[in-house]
């Protein structure tokens, strides 16, 4: 399917060469661990907002979401709308201020202050292994992508992408990650808008698109699908995606939260998430519409035998020379921006929550900075080695969702009660977290695809809901049966205290200044 040559290839190579140089520029601002993992807490809201969306959109979104739209229609946009916007508002108004004020670098670090070291460590390990595994997915996706479009061997493609990301992530830390994300977000937007304009031009605008698609696919223009739909049952979308998976992503995902902690003020931290929500509303234009264009304009069904071929078909058949290169650069940008954030966040988790907590305490800033860089490099190496294993899952996009679901529900329940309920204690959190993960594993049977067995597990949207509920109930019951946390310990870390007690502001400042 190799179809990018000549001028398009030049655009892509220039882009690939420029991004690491741009990232390296920010090395000059990195002198400490805080500079490396939190960009010295100097980022304005608009940089973080764009970086959040850059992190959120992966290349798998382009292929997977366009394929989903080709197959299911507008229902695919649930991931960008109901599956994001309410949670982003909640994250900005409720969760982010607490993370930011607590002075934490990571979500598990906040949980350590709120509950216990055990809860912190379990969360840190879950996130660390998940992010490391996701890296494998990203690297494999990059190999497949460059192989498909440019004809480069998969192994070589993975190595090139890994080298580019490693150069600017290792040297510039979060500042380089966030600033390159801004550039990458702009490239994605321009490329996506170009596809949209050309697509609408060919279909005769939105009305023309509806006229071409609706007669054959009447359900493609509705967000909700019936309850017996195997992929998008509306109740599963509302309960699993809207109320659990999405808040878990936007309120508890380390790669998401970490960049808001790099904000220069608490207002910037909150505004970054709200600003990102406005951008998020536009994402279906980039990733869902191409699926519709393929459905409307591809008259030969043998050209798209698998929905995931919808986006490549659009690129090959709709875009002129030069623009294909730009859109493909956007494609790579989506991949790089997710990859760099994942690497930086996983390194932060390991450095702060494992190494600093259990291995070498109270070392110098330089020591932790060096370790952060080494871990970053190690993660890139691990991602390269783990990449081929991810191919054993039935689909890359699905693999992401399934891996997340195992602990997203229990994590959200733990953080939610930690922030919102004073009575939640360390024993409740521990029981809820561990119990919720086991409920999730039991319902989803995630081992089946890995062992080549037929799937018998529950739809992941419902798994998220039930594991969340199980973790919530276990936390509440065990907390009520055991001793409450001392007020001094949780002061400033629970929502009610901040609103009812002015002196907590002082406690928060002291806690933040107290450091690790």
């Amino acid at each position, binding site marked *: 399917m190799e179809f990018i040559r000549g001028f398009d290839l030049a655009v892509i190579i220039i882009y690939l060469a420029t991004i690491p140089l741009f990232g390296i520029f920010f090395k000059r601002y990195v002198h400490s661990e805080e500079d490396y993992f939190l960009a010295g807490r100097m980022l304005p809201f608009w940089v973080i907002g764009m970086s959040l969306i850059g992190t959120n959109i992966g290349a798998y979104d382009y292929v997977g979401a366009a394929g989903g739209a080709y197959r299911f229609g507008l229902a695919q946009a649930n991931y960008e709308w109901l599956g994001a916007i309410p949670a982003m508002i909640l994250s900005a108004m409720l969760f982010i201020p607490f993370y930011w004020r607590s002075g934490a670098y990571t979500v598990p670090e906040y949980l350590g202050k709120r509950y216990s070291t055990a809860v912190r460590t379990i969360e840190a390990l879950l996130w660390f292994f998940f992010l490391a595994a996701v890296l494998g997915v990203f690297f494999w996706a990059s190999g497949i992508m460059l192989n498909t479009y440019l004809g480069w061997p998969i192994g070589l493609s993975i190595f090139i992408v890994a080298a580019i990301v490693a150069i600017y992530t290792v040297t510039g830390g979060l500042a380089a990650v966030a600033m390159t994300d801004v550039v990458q977000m702009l490239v994605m937007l321009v490329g996506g808008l170009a596809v949209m304009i050309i697509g609408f031009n060919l279909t005769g605008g939105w009305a023309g698109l509806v006229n071409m698609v609706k007669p054959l696919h009447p359900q493609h223009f509705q967000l909700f699908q019936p*309850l017996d739909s195997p992929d998008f049952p509306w109740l599963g979308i509302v309960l699993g995606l809207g109320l659990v998976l999405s808040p878990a992503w936007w309120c508890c995902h380390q790669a998401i939260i970490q960049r808001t902690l790099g904000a220069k003020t*608490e207002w910037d931290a*909150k505004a970054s998430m*709200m600003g990102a929500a406005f951008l998020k509303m536009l994402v279906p234009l980039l990733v869902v519409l191409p699926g519709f264009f393929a459905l409307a304009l591809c008259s030969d069904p043998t050209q798209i035998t698998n929905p995931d071929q919808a986006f490549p078909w659009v690129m090959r058949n709709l875009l002129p020379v030069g623009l294909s290169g730009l859109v493909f650069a956007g494609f790579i940008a989506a991949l790089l921006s997710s990859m760099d954030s994942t690497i930086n966040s996983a390194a932060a988790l390991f450095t702060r929550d494992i190494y600093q907590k259990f291995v070498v305490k109270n070392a110098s800033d330089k020591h932790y900075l060096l370790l952060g860089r080494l871990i970053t490099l190690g993660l890139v190496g691990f991602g390269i080695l783990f990449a081929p294993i991810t191919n054993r899952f039935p689909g890359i996009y699905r693999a992401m969702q399934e891996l997340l679901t195992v602990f997203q529900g229990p994590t959200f329940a733990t953080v939610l009660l930690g922030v919102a309920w004073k009575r939640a204690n360390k024993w409740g959190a521990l029981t809820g977290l561990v119990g919720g993960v086991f409920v999730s594993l039991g319902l989803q049977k995630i081992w089946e695809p890995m062992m080549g067995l037929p799937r018998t597990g529950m739809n992941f949207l419902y798994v998220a809901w039930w594991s969340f509920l199980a973790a919530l109930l276990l936390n509440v019951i065990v907390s009520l049966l055991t001793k409450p946390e001392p007020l001094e310990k949780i002061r400033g870390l629970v929502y009610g205290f901040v609103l009812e007690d002015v002196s907590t502001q002082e406690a928060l400042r002291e806690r933040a200044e107290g450091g690790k």
Partner: protein
Amino acid sequence: MDLSGIPLYWGVIVTVILYVGIALWAVLRPKEYIYQGAPNKSRWRDLRIWAVVLAGIQILIHIVWGGK
């Protein structure tokens, strides 16, 4: 229990209630909490307004495309 007969507009109703609830909750946050850390209290920095606009657009989208 067979739930497959429940019409799709119930999904829209539940979603609209969710967005209205979130917007109302956001509007009721104290002003000091919203502006904490802001260099000034300009109207555009009032994140409660941002929340209401976001929820409003989403409600409109779900009413138009939610399903019947």
